[in-house]
């Protein structure tokens, strides 16, 4: 491996540890927020928001999705569409109950 490539990886390593620190802080925030006993719908939104940020950090930096080939993005875009369908279609059959409950 040439020196340039090795320097490049060293920069990546610094980023990995910064992401690690951020993930730890967000984990503490996630647990901390749960002790505030917010109304359920607010707690769900806050928890999902933090989890989405944490998940995105893992996907972007540890799984290198911040600089990946187009083919991978296409595969993931297709997956995201099917994921949304799988989650939202069954949910839509219960919209009346959800509105009543929350």
């Amino acid at each position: 491996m040439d020196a340039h490539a090795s320097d490049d990886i060293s920069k990546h390593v610094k980023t990995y540890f910064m992401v690690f620190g951020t993930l730890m802080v967000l984990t503490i925030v996630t647990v901390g927020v749960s002790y505030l006993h917010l109304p359920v719908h607010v707690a769900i939104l806050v928890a999902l928001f933090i989890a989405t940020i944490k998940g995105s950090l893992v996907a972007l930096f540890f799984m290198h999705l911040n600089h990946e080939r187009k083919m991978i993005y296409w595969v993931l875009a297709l997956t995201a569409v099917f994921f949304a369908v799988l989650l939202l279609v069954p949910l839509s059959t219960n919209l009346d109950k959800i509105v009543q409950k929350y």
Partner: protein
Amino acid sequence: MEIPYTVEIRPDTGLTNGKLGVWLFLASEVMLFAALFSSYILLRVGSTEWPHGFQELNVPMAAINTVILITSSVTMVMAWASLKMNNFSKFRMHLGITILLAVAFLVIKYFEYAEHLATGMGPWHSTFLAIYFTMTGLHALHIIGGIIVNGYLWGPGAKMWTSEPVRFTNRIEIAGLYWHFVDLVWIFLFPMLYLL
């Protein structure tokens, strides 16, 4: 027969076959967990009462497990980075720590399960515990799968480093993608089951 495009990039996809293969596998895994997330939402909105996770489950243990899995993701990516920097002994150390952290996760999960079962709070007790055991059980199976693959790559599989270093580095990257996915699933499972 030699497997094609393990090291060189396939011109039409711009990727090695292994990398595209693992992403397609992960896409199918997303759908597997999505089916369970969808079931969780339907069960929750369809129930007359639903407990707060923190009333039934051990939050400190799960929080420690979250820290363990995130740390193992860092050591996994460091194992790959060590190979990229031509440092095999550091690779072995980082992958070894990843495996140990995965085992620690399972040990904590075992104590959590044992605590529930000892008090008769098994999956048969309530819909909440049924979906809890199903989702965390499936996740634990993925952890076991990761330990087996990473254990092979740490032990006998590591011989490839001397004969085909680039191919071996690609293998570690691919095993890492799977491991980070397992971490990512837990990042959503933890608040959903334990904190809401």
